[in-house]
Structures are given as structure tokens and as C-alpha cells.
């Protein structure tokens, strides 16, 4: 989807959660953030699959942190949005806002 210009819904959720978290964006907080905002359980594997895809596209960069005992000696993988990613988010936001603006009757209810 994003290859054609905009993020898909899931990609957008992941990248927005990533932006909200700033420097502390790794798997666990990203999943918690999405779960809190959407109220549904998130699969850690699918978050990483999406992040991997975004890394491949150059919208996100990743970096390994230090291994910790809490994680059984495994390292955290921190993610950060790239300038390209920010540009793409703005583009998607603009498109979505335009679409929402074209639906003023939604506030009063369509049906």
C-alpha cells in the first residue's frame, strides 16, 4: 500500500505509536500503545513484520539496545522514524483529513 504512496491502516497505527513513544520505541511499548488506543490485542510478531517492512522501505530505522536480564539476556530493538517516514506520514494525514472533511454529515450520523 505504502509503495503506492500512503500507509495502510495497520502501518499507520504502528508508525504513529512509534512517533508518540519517541526514543523509547521498541516492541513492548509499541504494542502497549496500540493496545491502549485501539482496545484490541496486538500480536508482537505482526508489529515486527510491519516494522521490518517499514525499515526496508526506508521509513523507519532500527538499532539494537543492550541485552537485559529482564529479557533473558536478549537485546531490545529500538525503532525511530526517518525524515522520509515523517514526510510519508504527513502525506497520508493530508489525504485522510481531506477525505474526512468531505464527510461533514458523519458528525450527525449517516443513517
Amino acid at each position, binding site marked *: 500500500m505504502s509503495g503506492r504512496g500512503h500507509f495502510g491502516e495497520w502501518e499507520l497505527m504502528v508508525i504513529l505509536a512509534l512517533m508518540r513513544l519517541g526514543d523509547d520505541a521498541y*516492541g513492548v511499548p509499541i504494542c502497549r500503545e496500540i493496545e491502549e488506543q485501539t482496545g484490541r490485542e496486538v*500480536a508482537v510478531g505482526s508489529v515486527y513484520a510491519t516494522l*521490518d517492512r517499514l525499515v526496508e522501505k526506508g521509513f523507519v530505522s532500527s538499532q539494537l539496545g543492550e541485552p537485559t536480564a*529482564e529479557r*533473558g539476556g536478549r537485546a531490545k530493538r529500538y525503532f525511530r522514524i526517518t525524515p522520509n517516514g515523517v514526510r510519508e506520514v504527513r502525506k497520508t494525514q493530508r489525504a485522510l483529513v481531506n477525505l474526512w472533511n468531505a464527510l461533514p454529515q458523519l458528525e450527525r450520523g449517516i443513517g
Partner: protein
Amino acid sequence: MKPSKPPALATWLLEHARFSTADGVIAGDLLEEFNRGRSAAWYWRQVLMAIVVGCASEVRHRRVVAIRAVVITWAVNYGAIRAPFVVYRLFGLAFHPALVSITFSLLGGAASGALVALLQRKDEGRHPARRILRGIGRRAMLLTCAGALLGWAFMAILFLKKGALQHPIHQILVATIVYYLVALTGFAIGALLLPAPSKPITPRSEHGFPVMYENSVFVQLRSIPGCGALRAVRFQSRESL
């Protein structure tokens, strides 16, 4: 009361199935969440989802190879399910029909498993990408074919066995599961019979380290006197490749 340790089998599965280059990190995340109070059921769900998502992601990357593997699996097993009729024609009912069917199902499964694994090995030689070299592609294709085999088993029982539709659904399901288990056993044997591909030769720098580590801190330290022991450091950080 919640167990203090996550399910060992689930952790083992995640660490050994490896369908994603991020499995080590995912295992760490899951452990962190489990220690914060998540249930064992949640842990299992996450592990299974990680395996399925990793496998699907690999298949999406290599659609043509995946389709080829599934077609081969179906074609070989179609041949295997028709073969008993040739035996009956040649030898009559000299052998018990169930024995003949099971033998050919097993052989068909084994032949398809071996073929898929063989073609996958050839692909690995042609595309020595990081994910493929780590066997992620091979495992993903084999798991995909194992899944496709279940679909095939159901269709084979339903449409290729005469009068199957007249039987009750539970009998059809039992027959499907039995046929699937036999073919899957053969598939696993066929896939495992082929020796694992030899490890690729890693290009090394003039210092004798793999070039991919050349900029790592450990390798940079090698020139400092007394740091020779660092050569023995095992590089565990898979993500830094």
C-alpha cells in the same frame, strides 16, 4: 496462580522455528511482557502468531517459489493417490488395499518433501540473501507445503474417493486427518532426508574477520595489545548483520 516461567515448549518453538530475523528480539519482548503479568495462554498465542506471521511474510517475499512448492506438493501427491489403481490393475488384490494406499501416501509425501527441499536448496545457492541463508526461506516453504497438504488431503478424500460425499462428515474428517498425518509424515521424512545445505563461505577481510563484522567494536579493538582474546568472542547479535 500464574507460573513464574513462560511455557518452555513455546519458547523453544520460537527460538528454533525461526521464521523471522527478529525472533530473538520477539522472544525478549514476550518474556518481558510475561514477567509483567501476561498469561501463559497469551504467550502461546503470541508465539504461534509470530511463527505464522513470519512464515507469511517470507512467502509474500517469494511468491513464485511458494506457488511452485505448493504445486509440486499437490502434483506429486495427486500421482501418489492415483498410483494404487495401477497396482490393483497389475497385481489385483494381492496386497491389502489399505496397506497399498498408506504406502503410496507415505511415498508421495516423502517425494514431495524431498523435491521441495531440493529446489529450495538450489534457490539458496542462487540467492544468498541473509534471510535465505539462515534457512528461514526453507522452513517457511516447508511449513507452507505442510499446510497446503492439509487442503489437498481434504480435497483428495472428498473428490477423489468414490462415493465420499455419501458418508457422514465425521467419517470424511477422520479419513482426511489419517491421510494427512500419513502424507505429512512422509513429507517430513523426505524433507529431512536431504542433508542440510553446507554453510556458505563468508567473505573475510584481510584481518581474518567476516567482512560484515569489520566495523564492529570488537573487531576495532583487535589492534589494541592484549585484546587478542576478543577474537574468541562469539558474535550473538544476529540483528547487527
